């Protein structure tokens, strides 16, 4: 062993290797000592790099971990996306109505598979040719489609339009179409989302219901007329009586010696005139009894009232009722169906006559008046001098099957109301200041 050089300068200098050998740590050395021949370990030599490498490694690991995590998140969201996509695709494709989303340029973004079932054309066909949609609409209804114009809608669900289409197989179907404009988050127009529902059944039931209602109106008319049979027979019997008397008078005149030509002529003219009178009653009855579709044209209410009165002439006499007629000749015409309006007045008049059944003959007064209502339209009032209507029943009497008669059906006023309202008018009941009640009808004039 070589002794360290023993001087001041070397007193504090130690050999690292020796220290190491003797396991003397640095802390045991006196202050100011210098250690030489330090042998750095690999670690001590390269610890910075190592740490750096390790750090880099760790960072790399972290990054990898992050990437893996991201990938997993991505995969999860992809899965979720697929599930969501599947969910919404199911929601969209499983619609039973035919629905579609049409881009602003007219091409189809999406069409529900139910398309084929509703219109006969597959969604592919329509995708390839979006003009098929307006094309399949029936000629008469094309105007409705053109007027509705999807593209102008705001994003508002409006009441749908209805039109008929001709399916690919040539069948006619009723479609109810609603649509909304599609606006994305940036406010850009993304086209139109439409819904087309097959309402063929509904329209069929609607037609059936309308037909039934029409039948009912007809039946009520028949019932009213049949209740008047006795009076109507009398109405026709009068001219028949006159005709016979005229004819027999003419025969007698002809048996006279002198020339009775003038008298015979008068008698024959009388026959013709009375025949016309009877024919008028028969014609009117025939019109009322016929089943007819509603026919709207300009109608004069006064002439309707007068023709109904001519049928009821005998009825008034049989029932000892006095008629007070007050017709304003200046009333405007009404747009309406003459037969149905006659039915309304027939009903109101027979009701009024019935209402006075128990009243003594002198006081049986039926008053009818027509006059112009303020601006336009006509106000008609039919008043009786019976016992009036209880205040709480003034609206109830217009309900179906409401009747105070033991043999009544109770549809007359209900149907009258329905007819008046279908003409755009109103009907209501009031009690008179004096005896009895009146029914008032307001009908709008021609537009």
């Amino acid at each position, binding site marked *: 062993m070589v002794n360290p050089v023993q001087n001041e300068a070397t007193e504090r200098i130690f050999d690292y290797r020796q220290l190491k050998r003797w396991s003397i740590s640095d802390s045991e050395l006196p202050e100011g000592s210098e250690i030489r021949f330090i042998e750095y370990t690999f670690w001590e030599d390269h610890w910075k790099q190592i740490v750096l490498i390790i750090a880099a490694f760790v960072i790399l690991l972290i990054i990898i971990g992050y990437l893996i995590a991201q990938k997993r998140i991505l995969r999860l969201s992809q899965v979720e996306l697929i599930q969501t996509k599947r969910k919404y695709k199911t929601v969209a494709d499983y619609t039973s109505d035919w629905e579609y989303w049409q881009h602003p340029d007219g091409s189809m973004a999406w069409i529900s598979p139910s398309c084929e079932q509703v219109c006969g054309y597959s969604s592919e066909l329509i995708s390839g040719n979006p003009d098929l949609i307006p094309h399949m609409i029936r000629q008469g209804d094309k105007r409705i489609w053109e007027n509705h114009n999807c593209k102008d809608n705001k994003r508002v669900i409006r009441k749908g339009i209805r039109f008929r289409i001709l399916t690919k197989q040539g069948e006619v179907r009723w479609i109810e179409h609603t649509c909304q404009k599609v606006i994305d988050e940036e406010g850009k127009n993304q086209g139109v989302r439409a819904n087309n529902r097959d309402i063929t059944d509904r329209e069929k039931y609607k037609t059936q219901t309308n037909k039934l209602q029409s039948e009912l109106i007809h039946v009520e008319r028949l019932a009213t007329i049949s209740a008047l049979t006795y009076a109507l027979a*009398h109405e026709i*019997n*009068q*001219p*028949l*009586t*006159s*005709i*016979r*008397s*005229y004819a*027999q*008078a*003419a*025969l*007698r*005149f002809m048996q*006279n010696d002198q020339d*009775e030509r003038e*008298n015979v002529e*008068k*008698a024959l003219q*009388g026959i013709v*005139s*009375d025949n016309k*009178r009877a024919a008028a009653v028969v014609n009117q009855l025939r019109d009322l009894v016929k089943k007819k579709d509603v026919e709207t044209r300009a109608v004069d209410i006064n002439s309707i009232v007068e023709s109904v009165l001519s049928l009821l002439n*005998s009825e*008034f*006499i*049989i029932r*000892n009722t*006095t008629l007070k007629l007050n017709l304003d000749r200046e009333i405007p015409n009404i747009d309406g169906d003459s037969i149905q309006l006659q039915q309304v007045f027939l009903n109101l008049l027979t009701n009024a006559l019935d209402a006075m059944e128990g009243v003594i003959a002198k006081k049986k007064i039926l008053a009818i008046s027509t006059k112009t209502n303020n601006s336009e339209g006509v106000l008609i009032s039919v008043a009786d001098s019976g016992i009036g209507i209880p205040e709480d029943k003034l609206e109830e009497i217009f309900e179906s099957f409401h009747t105070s008669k033991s043999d009544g059906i109770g549809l007359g006023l209900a149907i009258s109301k329905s007819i008046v309202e279908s003409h755009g008018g109103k009907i209501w009941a009031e009690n008179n200041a004096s005896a009895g009640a009146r029914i008032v009808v307001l009908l709008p004039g021609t537009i």
Partner: protein
Amino acid sequence: MSENSSSIFIVDDDFSIRSSLTMLLESAGYNVECFSSATDFLESGDIHSKNTCIVLDVKMSGLDGLDLQKELTSIDCITPIIFISGHGDIPMSVQAMKDGAVNFLTKPFDDDQLLDAIKEALSMAREAHEKQSRINQIKQKIDKLTPREIEVLKHLIAGLLNKQIAFELNISERTVKAHRKQILDKMGIKSMAELVRLTEKIGFEPAI
């Protein structure tokens, strides 16, 4: 042609009925006058016409035929009525006949039906008026008698002898005979039997 110059009355509110019946009656030679309501007829002053009859509709507005019949009865108008009606209900027609109508015809009727009824009605009217004027004549005759003579008359038609009458009235038989002659002279009759017949016609009551 027509024997009487008075008019047959038609009361009906239907214009062509009035017109056709007028033609019919004129073709059979009658004069006709029409009224469109019972009230018009009542106010016309024709209700006291003689030798005529009324062709009357039952159902009219206002006063109807049956009302008019009652009204005429109440003022002692004996003009016969023939009802015509478009309604043939039995109670109504029975009532009308009971109240003195000549006939009740339902429309439409034949000319013969109406004309026969009119003939019947006119002869009834004639008879009634003749009867009425006979009665009036008799009444006039009796008015010519003094009260005493009337008393004697009552006893004469009771079948009493002059003697008995004298005793009853406390006068002499000769006075009775004188009254008797006066009575027959004034009344222009020849026999007692005739006197009895005449007084019976006017419902003159005998003394017992």
